[in-house]
């Protein structure tokens, strides 16, 4: 039996097919609230149950409880606010009214039954959820673009498969759950990634695979910050890697359509809970998970897991050290398993790797599989895209 969804069951606020067509007609004449890219991602994930037990954007009491206590008022752990911000130029829609939810191009993606319109202290939100108010943090910069008024209420999300990226890899939580059961998996480890997979990531995934039935490779393809490797490039890397180096019967790759918040420790918990909804019993937490720059300590994300009762999380974090190839050991290792000095360890910083790739140099095979390096090199040099 698979792990239960967060809050007990998967929510389903998604409509498609004829029901979606009818809803679209109904919504054409309603007032419209605009979604930014992150909110569009959130709408999809509330709709498909990935954010269970949420059934909509947070109302005031839940927002404050999440920011201050990392719990919803109904009890479950919830570390980050999932909110809809009121935009300049949008109509004012009071509680009790319904509104269509549209993206910045005017495409309708769903609706909301407005239950609450409330002011938020965004500086307080940044300090508590991101741990900083420094404007060089991308999450703080994002909050700086918002009005400070949030609109809460239950949503419905319209499934528009024709507009989705990576349709062949888009599986909802109920679909991954059916898939895992069909494959006979009871324990599944999820790997969250927004980067190309180098040998170090491959190593920790395979360590984790030794103790569970299957791996869900779950790359994030929602909004990321400038400078991150584009999702289409990463997806090509993952395809090549899985094809060449993983047993196909023990791995599922599917996309995770969430936006990055760069909220470090709180986002690590968030990522884990959402993967629980996809049916995963274990979650890999590496160094500085969901971090950015030097805003978070190397192990802050891992330590935050320890502050919760394991039962209220309901998913087991697998905490990994930084891994590397050791020339003396002749294999991949971490500081937990290798006694040799740094001079024997093949480790390259991301900036150095990118510089090498731009100059047409392949990083060592002990750091990155050559097939992956070539895809990244083409992308860095503007070829093959």
């Amino acid at each position, binding site marked *: 039996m698979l792990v*239960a*969804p967060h*809050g*007990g*069951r*998967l929510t389903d606020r998604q409509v498609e097919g004829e029901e979606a067509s009818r809803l679209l007609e109904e919504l054409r004449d309603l007032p419209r609230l605009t979604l930014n890219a992150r909110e569009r991602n959130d709408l999809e994930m509330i709709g498909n149950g990935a954010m269970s*037990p949420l059934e909509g954007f947070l109302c005031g009491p839940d927002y404050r409880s999440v920011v201050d206590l990392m719990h919803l008022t*109904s*009890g*479950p752990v919830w570390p980050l606010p999932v909110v809809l911000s009121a935009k300049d130029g949008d109509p004012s829609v009071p509680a009790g009214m319904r509104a269509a939810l549209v993206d910045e191009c005017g495409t309708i993606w769903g609706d909301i039954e407005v239950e609450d319109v409330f002011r938020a202290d965004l500086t307080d939100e940044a300090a508590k959820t991101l741990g900083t108010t420094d404007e060089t943090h991308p999450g703080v910069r994002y909050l700086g673009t918002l009005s400070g008024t949030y609109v809460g209420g239950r949503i419905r999300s319209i499934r528009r498969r024709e507009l989705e990226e990576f349709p*062949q890899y888009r*599986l909802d*939580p*109920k*679909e991954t*759950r*059916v*898939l895992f059961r*069909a*494959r006979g998996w009871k324990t599944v480890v999820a790997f969250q990634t927004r980067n190309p997979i180098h040998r170090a990531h491959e190593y920790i995934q395979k360590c984790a695979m030794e103790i569970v039935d299957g791996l869900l490779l779950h790359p994030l393809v929602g909004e990321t910050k400038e400078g991150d490797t584009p999702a289409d490039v990463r997806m090509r890397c993952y395809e090549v890697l899985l094809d060449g180096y993983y047993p196909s019967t023990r791995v*599922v790759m599917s996309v995770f359509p969430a936006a990055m918040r760069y909220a470090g420790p709180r986002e690590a918990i968030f990522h884990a809970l959402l993967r629980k909804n996809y049916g995963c019993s274990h979650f890999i937490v590496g160094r500085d998970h969901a971090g950015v720059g030097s805003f978070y300590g190397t192990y802050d994300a891992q330590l935050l897991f320890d502050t919760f009762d394991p039962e209220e999380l309901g998913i087991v974090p697998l905490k990994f050290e930084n891994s590397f190839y050791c020339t003396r050991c002749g294999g991949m290792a971490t500081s937990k398993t290798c006694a040799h000095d740094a001079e024997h360890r093949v480790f390259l910083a991301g900036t150095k790797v990118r510089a090498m790739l731009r100059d047409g140099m392949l990083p060592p095979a002990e750091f990155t599989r050559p097939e992956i390096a070539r895809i990244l090199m083409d992308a860095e040099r503007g070829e093959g895209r």
Partner: protein
Amino acid sequence: MKGLVIWVRGATGAREAVLDELGNEIMERGGRVEVFHSEAAGSLGIESDERAKAAACAMLARHGVVVLAGSDGPCAASGGELIEIRETDLTELSGDLAHGSFIRRLELAGLVPPPRHDVSPDEEKIILERLRDLGYLD
């Protein structure tokens, strides 16, 4: 699951049907549930004795049963420390949406089990077909 008594206020006829629906839903989820019908109270000879009805319900709840019972007035009876007593109005439970959201609130509070399946058998067939089309399954 811990025991619980849910008192539903409202007109007797409609109330019994709603109690049955809620009882079936909780039973399908694998919950231990007892619907305390007016008939049951009648056969015990306590149909007009609110305190006796409350005591009977509380005894069942003390053994981990979710007890659904109807009442025409406020139910002031105490069920003991371990038993959570909820009162709700029939109008709150009328209609599928309200019924679903009431069960959901109980579920989130850990008072009734979640549904046994993520998807219905029909939906599962459609999903399996899609997974085969996408190459996830042979």
